[in-house]
């Protein structure tokens, strides 16, 4: 039988074709998705009328981004003027009252949107890191000891589903009672928000760490036994590296939860971050309010996305198990 002749229909992939296909996958498709979403949003927004004005569409949100940024610039200028005035006044006072101990005071004006973003980020990272410090050792302990795990597990499972809004009043009262000082380093609202974040994002980390530790290959544990590794070395050289993928998965989950919880906690504790921004705008009820709230929502979403991606990159960097860090 003769060989089948080579025809034009036989597809030979060329470099250009591959490049085009990859561009479509990574750039064009997501962009198309975003554009379609924007159009749908715009149309829907036109149709919804609330007592505070029309539901904000993408154009309104875009305008508010600009407005918030220019407000930020103006506020920075005011702050610069404030510091200049403070300098002048301090000099005058020292001239008249040499015994005066001058202090440099922070600008007393309002925080700008960018300041609030920064505050939110600091608060969430603090609460998250506090949770890591508590959860990872606790998770390792419960992973290593079945007895401890059985004892603690019911408590973990009971506290896991509790919403931050339920914790807030208690945390506020406790912080008020315990954190008393004439010149506090950080505001009470910051501590309250931070602790609420910690309380809510502890649980996924404890559980994932515990599972990661308990699920270590028996063979690896046997290697450690044969080598007679002392307990701390065992944890440092075997347990931790082996469970890092699971620990990081837990951390990623927790960070996502922490960010969500933070916004709610800020709203109620009045920590000057994005949550407070949303609440204040709602209270003001100005015609810009809904657009600004929508702007904040977009920013909150983007930051949450970036936090997650950042954590993923960190996980990939640290983890030896490529499979767990692939999504």
């Amino acid at each position, binding site marked *: 039988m003769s060989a089948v002749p080579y025809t034009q229909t036989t597809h030979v992939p060329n470099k250009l074709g591959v490049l085009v296909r990859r561009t479509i996958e990574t750039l064009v498709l997501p962009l198309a998705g975003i554009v379609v979403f924007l159009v749908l949003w715009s149309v829907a927004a036109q149709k919804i009328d609330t007592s505070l004005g029309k539901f904000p569409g993408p154009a309104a949100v875009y305008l508010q981004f600009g407005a918030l940024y220019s407000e930020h610039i103006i506020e920075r200028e005011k702050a610069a003027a404030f510091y200049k005035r403070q300098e002048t006044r301090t000099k005058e006072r020292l001239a008249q009252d040499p015994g005066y101990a001058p202090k440099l005071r922070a600008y007393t004006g309002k925080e700008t949107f960018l300041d609030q973003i920064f505050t939110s980020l600091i608060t969430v990272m603090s609460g998250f890191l506090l949770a890591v410090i508590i959860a990872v050792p606790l998770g390792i302990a419960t992973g290593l000891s079945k007895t401890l795990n059985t004892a603690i597990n019911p408590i973990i499972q009971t506290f896991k589903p509790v919403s931050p809004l339920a914790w807030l009043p208690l945390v506020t009262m406790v912080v008020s009672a315990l954190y008393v000082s004439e010149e506090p380093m950080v505001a009470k609202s910051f501590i309250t928000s931070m602790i609420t974040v910690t309380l809510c994002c502890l649980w996924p980390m404890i559980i994932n760490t515990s599972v990661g530790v308990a699920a270590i290959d028996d063979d690896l544990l046997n290697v450690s*036994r044969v*080598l007679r590794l002392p307990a701390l*070395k065992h944890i440092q050289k*075997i347990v931790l590296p082996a469970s890092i993928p699971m620990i990081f998965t837990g951390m990623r989950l927790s960070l996502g939860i922490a960010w969500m919880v933070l916004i709610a906690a800020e709203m109620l504790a009045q920590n000057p971050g994005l949550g407070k921004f949303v609440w204040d705008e709602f209270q003001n009820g100005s015609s810009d309010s809904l657009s600004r709230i929508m702007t904040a929502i977009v920013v909150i979403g983007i930051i949450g996305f970036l936090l997650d991606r950042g954590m993923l990159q960190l996980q990939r960097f640290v983890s030896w198990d490529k499979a767990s860090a692939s999504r």
Partner: protein
Amino acid sequence: MQPILDISTIDMEFPTPSGPFTALKEVSLRINKGEFVSLIGHSGCGKSTVLNIVAGLYQATRGGVVLNGKEVSEPGPERAVVFQNHSLLPWLSAFENVELAVKQVFGRDKSKAEMKEWIEYNLHLVHMDHAMHKRPDEISGGMKQRVGIARALAMQPEILLMDEPFGALDALTRAHMQDSLMEIQSELKNTVIMITHDVDEAVLLSDRIVMMTNGPAATIGEILPVNLERPRERLALASDAEYTRLRADVLRFLYEKQRKVETIQTEQKPKKPKFNKTENKAA
């Protein structure tokens, strides 16, 4: 030859929900220095249990293990283990895996340079010099097992315990590994207990083959001395009469005397049920 390992009337019982399960009954064995002993038997006959008891990973219910005159009940680097699934730490390179063992055993006595030399020597022994800084996920199964052996050897154990070390490898790789092992054995003259399923492997490598009866309450059935001259060459032995005889002895033990009973209970073959595709009912 001095018996350095004395396995003395070991019984092993495992607690189960339906009562204690006797895995081993009165297992006794003496092993001399420099001897290569294979442990062979059907699956589930307790070979791994014996090895784990010698390694100290299990505690015998009765009886004990004495190494160099001292009873051992805990794991330790003097009874290094090579696991069936290499058990390399996936986040360390080959070098670092061996280094972990070396540091743990010799960290206090040797300098960093001395240890580095020792590690490289051991990796050289298993022909892994070229890949010593690669991670386990970057090397093949055979190479991983070599590193596992290197790690065990680097601990300078009194006795090397190998639990079906080549069981997960393909036939060609297995052959290479066996040759490597014989090479190392000739050089280092280690005392080795190796568990295997492979009859050829047992005859090729060992000085003695310990054949175990079936479980439960398994014990040592027969011990077959292998007096083939070393160095043993695979191809040459294929046509060696003694080799063939020894092989036959082992097979006989396994398949006649210790046949695993899986007989058909009834004379009748089961009736095949009607299970045809439905025919197209033409009008």
